[in-house]
C-alpha cells in the first residue's frame, strides 16, 4: 500500500475547504460572479473550480501511478523518457509524384527530422491504381501516388532504410505497402529484420471514423492477423498496427470517446490475434497507438496518462499478458487538424505549439505538428519548416523535456486522469455488452456517438458557448493571404503514363501467376503477407492485387446514417 493521503489529513483538508468556501469564496462570488455559468472542456466535460487531495482520496502511488517504465506506466513507458532520447519528430508528408515526395523527404531529413511518415493519395488508400476511373482528379492530391514497387523505389531513393524508421498511413492495403517497403529495403541490401517503422493497418477505425475501407470487417481482420503472424517471424522491429484515435477525434468525438473507441479497437485486435492462435506476448509488444493532440491542454494530457494506465490494466488483467512489453502503450501524436482555421491562418502556429506541448507533457513517443496552411491545402515547405521548428523549440528551449511527467501529482491532473479512465471504462463495458467492437461497428454505435458529439460541438460554437479565435470571436474582415502548395495537374498525366509503361515492361506472365497465388491464398487461408511480398517483387500493382481480393472478399457497405 502506498496511499498518498491519510484519512486524518483528508478530514482536515475537507473541513478547511468548507470553511474557505463559506468565509472567503462565497463572499468573493457575491461581489464578482465567475466568468461563465459552467466551465467545461472542448469535449464538454465539466471542469470543477478546484481540486484538492480530497477529490482523489484513494490515490495509491505505486498502484495508480508507479515509476516511469513501471506498471501501470501512468508516468511514462520508459525509465529515462526524454532525458534519454527525445520523441521522434515525424512529419507526415507526401504529395504529387514519388519523385516530388522523395525531394520533400530529403529536405525534411536535412532539417533535422528524425523519422519519415508517408501520406498516400486517395486511390492508393482505397486500393485503386492511378489509371482507374475512380482515381480521376485525385492523383497525387492528398498524398503521394503509389501504384507499384517502382514508385516506392523512387520515394526512398537515397534514403538508407537501415537508418530511418518509416511510418505509413495505410489501412486496407497495408500489407501490400509493407511488402513493397520490405522489397525496397532488400534491394538496398537491408534485410527485413533490420527495418523499423509502422503501418497504420487499423481498419476498425476506418469503419468508425476515417472511412477509407475496402473489404468488410471480418476478412479485413483476417488480413491483419496474417500480417501479425508474418511480422512476428520476419519483421520483428515493425509496429504492425497503429491503433488510431486521431481520426476518431477529427471526426468530432470527445476526448473520452477517442480514448475509449481506440482502446476498444485495440482489444478487438488482441482478441483476433488470440483467436487466430497467436501467443499474446508474441505480437502485443508490436502494437502501437496514435492519438490526437487537441486544444484543451489538460484534458489531452490526462487522456494520454489514462490511456497508458488503462491499456496496461487491460493487457494484464483481461488478456493475461505476462511480458511488460505487452503492457506498454507507446504512441504517436498528431496535433488536431480540425482545430485549425482558414481565418487568420498564422494563429494556427500558436494552436499547434500548445497542442504539441500537451502531447510532450503527456509522454508521446513521436509527434507530427500540423502546418499553418493545412485548412487550405497540403503544406508548403516554409509552413512545414515552422511546424518542425515548433517541436525543436519545445524540445530544446522550453525545458519541459528535462524531467519526467512534470504534471504528475497535480491534484487536478490526477483527478482528471482518473475521470477519463473511469468514463472510458464505461464505454468499454457498453461495447462488451453489444458483443465486441466489430458488432458495435455493425450496429453503428461508435459512429453515432461521434456524429452526435460533432453536432453538439457545432451547436455550441454557433451559440458562442465555445470560442474559436478568428472564427466566432475576434473576427477580422481583411486577411492577408498566405502562399499555398499547388499540385500541378500534370502529375496525374505523368503518373498514369509511368504506370502504363510499367505494365508493358514487366513480365506479365509472372504477374498473372502471382495474382493467382494471391487469390488462392485468399480463398484457402494461406498467409497473404507472404503472397504480397512475392507479388509486389514482380511489379504486380496495388490495384491488381486489391482487385483480386475484392473478388474474393467483397466490399464494405457503410450504413451512412446521419
Amino acid at each position, binding site marked *: 500500500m502506498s496511499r498518498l493521503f491519510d484519512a486524518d489529513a483528508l478530514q482536515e483538508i475537507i473541513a478547511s475547504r468548507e470553511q474557505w468556501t463559506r468565509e472567503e469564496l462565497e463572499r468573493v462570488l457575491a461581489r464578482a460572479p465567475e466568468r461563465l455559468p459552467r466551465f467545461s472542456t472542448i469535449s464538454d466535460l465539466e471542469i470543477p473550480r478546484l481540486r484538492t487531495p480530497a477529490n482523489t482520496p484513494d490515490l495509491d502511488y505505486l498502484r495508480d501511478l508507479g515509476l516511469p517504465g513501471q506498471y501501470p506506466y501512468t508516468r511514462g513507458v520508459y525509465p529515462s523518457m526524454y532525458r534519454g532520447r527525445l520523441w521522434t519528430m515525424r512529419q507526415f508528408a507526401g504529395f504529387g509524384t514519388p519523385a516530388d515526395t522523395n525531394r520533400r523527404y530529403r529536405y525534411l531529413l536535412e532539417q533535422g527530422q528524425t523519422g519519415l511518415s508517408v501520406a498516400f493519395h486517395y*486511390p492508393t488508400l*482505397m486500393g485503386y491504381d492511378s489509371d482507374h476511373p475512380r482515381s480521376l*482528379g485525385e492523383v497525387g492530391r492528398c498524398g503521394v501516388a503509389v501504384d507499384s514497387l517502382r514508385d516506392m523505389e523512387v520515394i526512398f531513393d537515397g534514403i538508407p532504410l537501415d537508418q530511418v524508421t518509416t511510418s505509413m498511413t495505410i489501412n486496407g492495403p497495408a500489407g501490400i505497402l509493407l511488402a513493397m517497403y520490405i522489397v525496397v529495403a532488400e534491394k538496398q541490401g537491408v534485410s527485413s529484420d533490420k527495418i523499423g517503422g509502422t503501418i497504420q493497418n487499423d481498419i476498425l477505425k476506418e469503419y468508425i471514423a476515417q472511412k477509407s475501407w475496402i473489404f468488410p470487417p471480418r476478412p479485413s481482420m483476417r488480413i491483419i492477423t496474417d500480417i501479425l503472424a508474418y511480422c512476428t517471424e520476419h519483421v520483428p522491429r515493425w509496429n504492425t498496427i497503429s491503433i488510431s484515435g486521431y481520426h476518431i477525434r477529427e471526426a468530432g468525438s470527445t476526448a473520452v470517446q477517442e480514448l475509449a473507441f481506440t482502446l476498444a479497437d485495440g482489444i478487438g485486435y488482441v482478441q483476433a490475434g488470440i483467436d487466430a492462435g497467436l501467443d499474446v506476448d508474441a505480437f502485443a509488444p508490436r502494437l502501437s497507438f496514435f492519438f490526437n493532440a487537441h486544444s484543451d491542454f489538460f484534458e489531452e494530457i490526462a487522456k494520454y496518462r489514462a490511456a497508458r494506465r488503462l491499456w496496461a490494466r487491460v493487457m494484464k488483467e483481461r488478456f493475461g499478458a505476462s511480458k511488460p512489453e505487452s503492457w506498454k502503450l507507446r504512441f504517436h501524436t498528431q496535433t488536431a487538424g480540425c482545430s485549425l*482555421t*482558414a481565418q487568420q491562418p498564422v494563429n494556427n502556429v500558436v494552436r499547434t505549439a500548445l497542442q504539441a506541448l500537451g502531447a510532450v507533457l503527456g509522454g508521446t513517443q513521436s509527434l507530427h505538428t500540423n502546418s499553418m496552411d493545412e485548412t487550405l491545402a497540403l503544406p508548403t515547405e516554409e509552413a512545414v519548416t515552422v511546424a518542425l521548428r515548433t517541436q525543436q523549440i519545445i524540445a530544446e528551449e522550453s525545458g519541459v523535456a528535462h524531467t519526467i511527467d512534470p504534471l504528475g501529482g497535480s491534484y487536478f491532473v490526477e483527478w482528471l486522469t482518473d475521470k477519463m479512465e473511469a468514463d472510458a471504462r464505461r464505454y468499454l463495458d457498453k461495447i462488451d455488452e453489444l458483443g465486441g467492437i466489430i458488432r458495435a461497428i455493425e450496429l453503428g454505435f461508435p459512429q453515432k456517438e461521434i456524429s452526435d458529439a*460533432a453536432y453538439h460541438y457545432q451547436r455550441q460554437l454557433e451559440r458562442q458557448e465555445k470560442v474559436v479565435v478568428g472564427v466566432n470571436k475576434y473576427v477580422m474582415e481583411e486577411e492577408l*493571404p498566405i502562399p499555398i502548395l499547388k499540385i500541378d495537374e500534370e502529375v496525374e498525366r505523368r503518373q498514369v503514363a509511368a504506370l502504363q509503361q510499367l505494365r508493358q515492361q514487366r513480365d506479365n506472365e509472372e504477374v498473372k501467376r502471382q495474382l493467382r497465388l494471391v487469390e488462392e491464398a485468399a480463398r484457402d487461408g494461406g498467409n497473404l503477407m507472404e503472397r504480397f511480398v512475392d507479388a509486389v517483387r514482380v511489379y504486380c500493382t496495388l490495384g491488381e492485387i486489391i482487385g483480386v481480393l475484392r473478388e474474393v472478399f467483397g466490399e464494405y457497405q457503410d450504413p451512412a446514417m446521419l
Partner: protein
Amino acid sequence: MAEERKLRILVAKPGLDGHDRGAKVVARSLRDAGMEVIYTGLHQTPEMIVATAIQEDVDAVGLSIMSGAHNVLFPAVVKGLREQGADDVVVFGGGIIPDDDIPRLAEAGVSQVFTPGTPTGQIIEWVRQNVRPRG
C-alpha cells in the same frame, strides 16, 4: 395561400475521401431547419450523385469534398445534371477549396462554395434565398 412544399436537398460526398464530419453536420443542420435532406454516404461518383438527385427529385445538391479533386468532380456533377435535363437543380459545395479555385467552379455552374469555418446558419440562409422548389 398554399404553403410551399419543403425544400429537398441532396447532401453528397463525391470522390474517395472519407471526411464526412462536415457533410453530416450540414445535413443535420438543414434538416433541423425544416428541409428534407437525403445523404448519399461516402465515395460517390458524379454519375451516382446525378442518378440519386434525379431519382429523389431534389431541388439542390450540396457537395462536400476534402481531397482536392473538386475541380474535376464538381463540374462533372453539374454537367451530368444538365445532360439529364435537370439543369434547374442548384449545385453548391464546400470543403478544403482554395480561393483561387472558386471562380473556376462558379464558371462551371457551381452556385456557391462554402469554405472552412462557415457557420451552418449562413448555409441555411443561403439555401433559403437561392433554392426554390422545382415545378
